[in-house]
C-alpha cells in the first residue's frame, strides 16, 4: 500500500466538499453539472481506496457503475440545458423562474 487509506478518504472528502461548494455557489447550469461530476469523481476515489484497503475488486465495480450513471446524468442534464436554452436563451439558474412558458 502506497499511502494509508485515511489519506485517500481525506482526499475524497476534500474533492467532494469542493464539488458541493461549486454546485451551490455557481449560477451557470453547465458548471453546476460539472460540479456534480467533481463530486462523483470524489466518490470514485473513495471507492477505489476502499477496494484497495479490503483487497476486493468489488469496490472498483461500484466505481464503474458510478461512471456509467455519471454518463447518463451528463446526457440528460445537457439535454435539459439545450431544451431550456431553446425556450429562453442563457444558462443562468436565476433566470429560470417559471416551469412552463
Amino acid at each position, binding site marked *: 500500500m502506497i499511502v494509508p487509506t485515511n489519506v485517500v478518504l481525506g482526499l475524497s472528502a476534500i474533492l467532494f466538499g469542493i464539488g458541493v461548494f461549486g454546485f451551490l455557489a455557481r449560477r451557470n447550469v453547465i458548471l453546476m453539472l460539472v460540479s456534480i461530476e467533481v463530486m462523483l469523481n470524489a466518490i470514485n476515489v473513495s471507492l477505489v481506496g476502499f477496494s484497495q484497503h479490503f483487497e476486493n475488486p468489488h469496490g472498483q465495480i461500484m*466505481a464503474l457503475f458510478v461512471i456509467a450513471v455519471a454518463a447518463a446524468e451528463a446526457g*440528460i442534464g445537457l439535454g435539459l440545458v439545450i431544451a431550456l436554452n431553446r425556450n429562453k436563451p442563457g444558462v443562468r439558474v436565476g433566470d429560470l423562474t417559471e416551469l412552463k412558458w
Partner: protein
Amino acid sequence: MTLLTATFYYMATASVVSALLAVTRRNPLHSLLWVLALFGHVAGIFLLLEAEFLAVVQVVVYAGAILIFYLFVMMLLDLSDEDTRPRFGNHWPFAAGAGLLFVAIAFIAQLERSNMVGIRGTPSGEGPLQGSLEGIGLALFGPFALPFEMVSLVLLAAIVGAVVLAQRRVPRP
C-alpha cells in the same frame, strides 16, 4: 518517503488545486479545461491505487467522452455575456460553509475510526489485488451480471430521454 508516495501526494495536491480552480474560474471554457486536468490527475491516483482498468476508463469515458460532450454543448450555446455577469450567487458564503462543513464532518468521522485497523471486509481470497482486470471481469460477469445489465438499461433510458428532451418540436401541419 518513496517515489510512489511522493507521486501520490503530488497527484492529490494537483487534483485539489485543479478542482478549486474549476469551480471558481469565470470563463466556463477555462473551468472545463481545469476539470480535464482534475480527471487526468484522478486517473493517476487510480493507477497508484492498483485500479488500472478504472484509470483507463476514467481517461477514455470521462476525459474523452463526457468532457468533450460538455465542451460541445457549451460551444453550441451563446455565452458571450458570461464574462460580465457575477459567477457566484449572493449566497456563496453559505455554499462555502456547506462545503467546509461536509469536509469537517468527514474528517471527524475518520478520527473516530483512526486508521481503520479494526475494520476487515470480506477479502476476495486471492491475496493482494494484482492484475485487477481479471478480477473485475470475473466479478462483472459473475455475481454482478444483473447490476451490469441494469446499468445498460439506465444508459438506454438516458439516451432515449436525451433525444426526447432535446428534440425540436415542430407543430404538425
